[in-house]
């Protein structure tokens, strides 16, 4: 594994030891035939090397034609040694040994952009024979661009440019049109209903930590929700599973009250830290649902198996429930038990729409444009494939 000169010598010695062991074992294996009848094997020929494309220059592929004596059943050849040196004249170091019948090897002990020469040697009980000339100069090139990933680069670059363009547009005042999601109306309706009934709103920002973007989206939506509840003077309850989202949730609710012009109504107990433990968290939420009887349940964020318990308990109290998650396996439980469910990326779209932040909206618009591009690519590709033209499909094949 190590490439420094001294280490490759060490490695060479190791491989040489293996070769000696092979040679030492050979007389035992050749016991059936008298040892003196076995001649040294004839040399392997045609050693060729090939640099591996699109790599960091850490390996060189070698292949050769077997020694004519390397046939099945023959014991003349027991294996091959691969030798490597910095010049056609050596000094040579054994870098690998392979058993008889092997035609190729990858030398992974090279350093990028250095010059190497290779030789291959047949080993048998009768002796060792070095192949005629050294192959070289072999230079493992370190590539500056992995050309098999061109299509990934193209899609990524297109996407980033679109997003940046629309962000720029949005910031310079030409905010792109983004339709209002039906889910947002549903959230407002639920809050309105809770206000009418004089009961609190329950807001659950998911069960994951801040490293999950769904939690972030959930907390962004929380700010808008808190603004609405502050305006209506409806209490809000926010149980949070992790410490960092907890502090952020507090801030979001406070700033919601602030931007509604009601900093005085902010209740520091409305956001509570529960426990990252899934079932303890669920038990706390179902406790709130059954005890405080909120009239609106908003589940916005990442949910796992607990979605089913939340949706069912919430359903049984007759509250309006709106859910949003990008955890697809949990969506069916929300869809059947909630009044409205934001599906997958609608969670992020809602957070962009509600925050109204130009850059988020710009990002949304950029993603929309890439969707149009994908629809066009799929349509074009399907037509091309139907007529037996595979160029586009092949270009998108990546490594």
């Amino acid at each position, binding site marked *: 594994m190590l490439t*420094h000169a001294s280490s490759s010598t060490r490695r060479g010695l190791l491989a040489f030891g293996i070769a000696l062991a092979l040679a030492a074992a050979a007389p035992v294996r050749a016991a059936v035939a008298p040892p003196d009848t076995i001649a040294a094997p004839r040399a392997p020929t045609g050693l060729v090397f090939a640099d591996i494309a699109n790599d960091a220059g850490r390996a060189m592929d070698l292949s050769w034609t077997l020694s004519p004596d390397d046939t099945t059943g023959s014991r003349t050849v027991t294996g091959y040694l691969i030798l490597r040196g910095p010049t056609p004249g050596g000094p040579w170091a054994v870098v690998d040994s392979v058993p008889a019948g092997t035609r190729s090897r990858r030398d992974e002990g090279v350093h990028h952009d250095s010059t190497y020469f290779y030789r291959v040697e047949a080993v048998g009980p009768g002796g060792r024979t070095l192949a005629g000339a050294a192959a070289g100069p072999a230079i493992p090139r370190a590539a500056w661009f992995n050309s098999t990933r061109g299509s990934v680069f193209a899609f990524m670059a297109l996407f980033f440019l679109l997003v940046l363009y629309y962000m720029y547009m949005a910031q310079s005042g030409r905010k792109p049109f983004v*339709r209002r999601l039906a889910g947002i109306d549903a959230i407002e309706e639920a809050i309105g209903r809770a206000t009418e009934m004089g009961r609190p709103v329950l807001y659950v920002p998911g069960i994951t930590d801040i490293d999950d973007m769904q939690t972030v989206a959930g907390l962004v939506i929380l700010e808008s929700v808190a603004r609405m509840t502050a305006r209506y003077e409806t209490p809000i309850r926010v149980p949070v599973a992790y410490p960092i989202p907890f502090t952020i949730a507090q801030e979001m609710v406070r700033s919601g009250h602030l931007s509604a012009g009601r900093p005085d109504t902010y209740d520091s107990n409305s956001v509570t830290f529960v426990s990252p433990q899934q079932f*303890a968290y669920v038990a706390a939420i179902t406790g709130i649902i059954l005890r405080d009887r909120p009239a609106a349940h908003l589940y916005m964020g990442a949910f796992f198996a607990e979605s089913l318990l939340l949706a069912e308990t919430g359903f049984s109290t007759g509250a309006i429930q709106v859910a949003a998650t990008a955890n697809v396996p949990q969506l069916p439980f929300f869809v059947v038990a909630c009044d409205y469910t934001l599906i997958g*990326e609608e969670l992020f779209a809602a957070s962009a729409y509600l925050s109204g932040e130009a850059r988020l909206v710009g990002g949304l618009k950029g993603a929309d444009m890439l969707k149009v591009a994908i629809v066009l690519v799929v349509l074009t590709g399907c037509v091309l494939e139907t007529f037996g033209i595979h160029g586009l499909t092949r270009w998108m094949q990546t490594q």
Partner: protein
Amino acid sequence: MNVSHDLGTWVAAFLTLCILSFVYKDNPFYKFAEYLFVGVSAGYFIVLNYWTVIYSNLLDPLRTAFGGHVEGGPFRIEQGDYRALLVIPGLLGVLLFTRLSRRTAWVSRWALAVIIGVYAGLKTTGFAQGDLVAQVQASLQPLWVPGHLWTSVNAIVFTVGLLTSLLYFFYSREHKGGLGLATRVGVLFLMVSFGAAYGYTVMSRVSLLIGRFQFLFSDWLHLIR
């Protein structure tokens, strides 16, 4: 009845029943088991991460680095042998603990920034290649295969489902007219996929219960093989 004589199995069976009692109602036995579980798993995670990562990927290589047994050469970093450089992640890891105090918590952002940066990069490229490009590429299929009517019908249904579902998540225009029609078709496909997910989730959950009953009946009570 020939029940188990192993203390561990009895402890495990007792805890299994404590937790299963939750389906009757929340009770002290369930709570006992739940808190014990949180404690044991927190302790176990610390031990596990210490020995398998902090010790083997950080402290052990650092000891070698500062113990004077430096092998290899100038290129060892290329081979993933970082030695003394590992002081950097070690320091960042320790910085995380400034979170325990409110006043020093901002220092932990440095460590957090490194993690967030690494995962932002990894996820962006991983999703771009594995999900976006590879999935779009696999969708480029012939819509008409002569002589294979059923294959062709499926290819067309699939493509219609894919494109209309994709358009459902289109926010730049109101869902009216042609787009409205497409998104209404798309939502039907989405609902079928949620139904399938529902069915498979049922299968998963039932399997877990089967596993627990298999434990109680075989390991503990020896009722079944």
